[in-house]
């Protein structure tokens, strides 16, 4: 894509986001969005960011991490801390207030950046054990990291401790939530298509082979963790400053991490569009099941759990598998966009049926021929 096209696309996206924000926050004419739907929509945006960023580690690099809520907590608490304790002075420098559009935007930008940096550092720290541990061991260590972070937050009174960060100022809006979601998708898709992404796919395929090929697995794995964590941190910052949704250590436990894993598994591990789809469906599903709950209290989560088991039995590769949605997908529905160097065993099983050879990919790039 030429630079001009990129800039135009960026400008159009931002304009569209501003227009949508205007529509959702203030309405247009007589049209007002139902606050309940608005809330679900915000959660979808945040979950898209979380799922797509987790997909970078789990899907592209094949490092099984289940501590994403921990990164979310680090970024979320840091960002919210910045807003609550330093938001007013920062906005004051501009002669504005945190609740005003301009002051709010600047504070938001700064707080999210600080949150992203803090989470990236945490991701860096978690990335280090990934150099020695694999598979289930890494999974349990990432889970442990998430729990440690949660317990530490429980013990810091300045951010509310066990009661949650109730001082949070609700300054997030649709522009920020979906802007971040779009940015995350753009970043991850670009990484997937770059030499970095190819290196990550190689690591997923066979780490020893990757090392032998001269790929610095250390560098790429730690970097993937840091980037993924930073994006999760931004998502945390957004959810921390969402309307009437204070951060609470109870909501950032390992069940939350697993929810995010389930999103990418539902969509198809390794597929960015799958992650978007999975995040959207799994945000709506529990809400849609609220009707069940009214008739049989508590049954909602039972149905959710059953659906999860049935999904794994009947479609373990997820909805999209490793495919990506795109224009080429409509033209040729079975083509992969992200070239994978070596296939996982699971991929091989799930895709071998009726799948034409991708003629444009060179030998060794397309996975199952």
């Amino acid at each position, binding site marked *: 894509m030429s630079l001009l096209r990129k800039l135009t696309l960026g400008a159009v996206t931002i304009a569209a986001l501003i227009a949508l924000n205007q529509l959702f926050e203030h309405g247009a004419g007589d049209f007002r969005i139902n606050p309940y739907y608005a809330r679900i929509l915000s959660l979808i945006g945040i979950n898209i960011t979380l799922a797509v960023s987790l997909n970078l580690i789990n899907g592209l690099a094949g490092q099984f991490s289940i501590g994403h809520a921990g990164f979310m907590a680090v970024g979320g608490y840091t960002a919210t801390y910045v807003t609550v304790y330093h938001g007013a002075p920062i906005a004051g420098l501009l002669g504005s207030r945190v609740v005003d559009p301009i002051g709010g935007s600047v504070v938001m930008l700064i707080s999210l950046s600080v949150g992203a940096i803090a989470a990236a550092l945490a991701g860096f720290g978690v990335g280090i054990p990934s150099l020695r*541990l694999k598979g289930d061991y890494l999974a349990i260590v990432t*889970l*442990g990291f998430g*729990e440690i972070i949660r317990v530490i937050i429980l013990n810091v009174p300045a951010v509310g401790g066990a009661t949650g960060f109730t001082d949070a100022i609700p300054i997030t809006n649709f522009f920020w939530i979906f802007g971040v979601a779009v940015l995350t998708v753009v970043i991850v898709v670009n990484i997937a298509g770059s030499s970095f992404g190819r290196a990550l796919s190689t690591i997923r395929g066979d780490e020893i082979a990757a090392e032998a090929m001269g790929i610095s697995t250390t560098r790429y794995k730690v970097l993937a963790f840091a980037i993924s964590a930073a994006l999760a941190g931004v998502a945390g910052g957004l959810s921390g400053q969402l309307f009437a949704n204070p951060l609470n250590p109870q909501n950032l436990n390992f069940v939350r991490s697993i929810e995010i894993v389930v999103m990418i598994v539902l969509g198809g591990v390794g597929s960015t569009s799958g992650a978007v789809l999975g995040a959207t469906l799994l945000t709506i599903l529990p809400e849609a099941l609220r009707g069940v709950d009214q008739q049989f209290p508590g049954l909602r989560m*039972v149905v959710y*759990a059953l659906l*999860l088991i049935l999904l794994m*039995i009947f479609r373990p590769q997820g909805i999209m598998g490793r495919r990506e949605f795109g224009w080429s997908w409509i033209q040729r529905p079975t083509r992969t966009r992200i070239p994978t160097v070596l296939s996982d065993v699971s991929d091989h099983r799930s895709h071998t049926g009726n799948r034409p050879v991708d003629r444009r990919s060179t030998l060794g790039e397309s996975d199952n021929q």
Partner: protein
Amino acid sequence: MDTVLQQVINGLSLGAIYALIALGYTMVYGVLRLINFAHGDVYMLGAFAGYFLATALDLDRHPSVLGTIVVTMGAMAVCAGVGIVIERFAYRPVRHHSRLASLITAIGVSLLLEYGGQVVFGASPRFFPQMIRSETYTIAGAQVTNQSLLVIAVAVVVMFGLEFVVHRTRIGKAMRATSYNLNVAKLMGINTDRVIAFTFALGSALAAVGGVMVALAIPRIDPLMGLMTGLKAFVAAVLGGIGNIPGAMIGGMLIGLMETGISATAYSTYRDAVAFAVLIVILLVRPSGILGTPVTEKV
């Protein structure tokens, strides 16, 4: 000195519980390479099965050792059945799918048992009947109840029993063969499906023992009690070297001692994080756990 001894005793009785649950984790993982996330919830079911049995036998008013044994056996039978059902209908269909699919299924089963438990048993905690009269002994200045002694004794007996089953019996040999290589074991004429079902039954029965023992010592049970305990027991299993029976025992005891040690200090609020911190440190030094055998990578 007395307080140190006291903490050690408390730590050992807590550790024995973790060890009992960790034994089940370790066996299932050893044979199937599956983190059975639902194991902690089977432990919860064991406690509830024990609760209903003990209430039915009216053990609260007539405590008896025989009754306790009956209740434990009953809970074991119930959980063994549950374990077989879970394996047959949830894990077996996904066995040939990816590792991730089995893990998500395990999480699904765990959520199903937790929330199903809340629907069936109600979310509020219940109080377990006192099946054995509590007695406190004083050993070298430290207080110890007969219940915690029982838990430790049961854990040790179960560990040796399991070692015997795995290393001295036919089914144990089949389990080891299945664990070594499932497909080759099948070719050698082992009914691996039956071996795996047996493993689940045995593991779940052990979880039930853990559930009843905990309920004896801490008589407060609720549908979510398996969540954190199960997680820590799994950590204990990994810590000791997953798939290794004495390793699960050592890991469980270590976690129990650490936790009570921390509870006794000013940092007691960090209790839940300690298990994980210890795990991370140990895995960084010994990536396959304390007693685990390092796996050499084939190129």
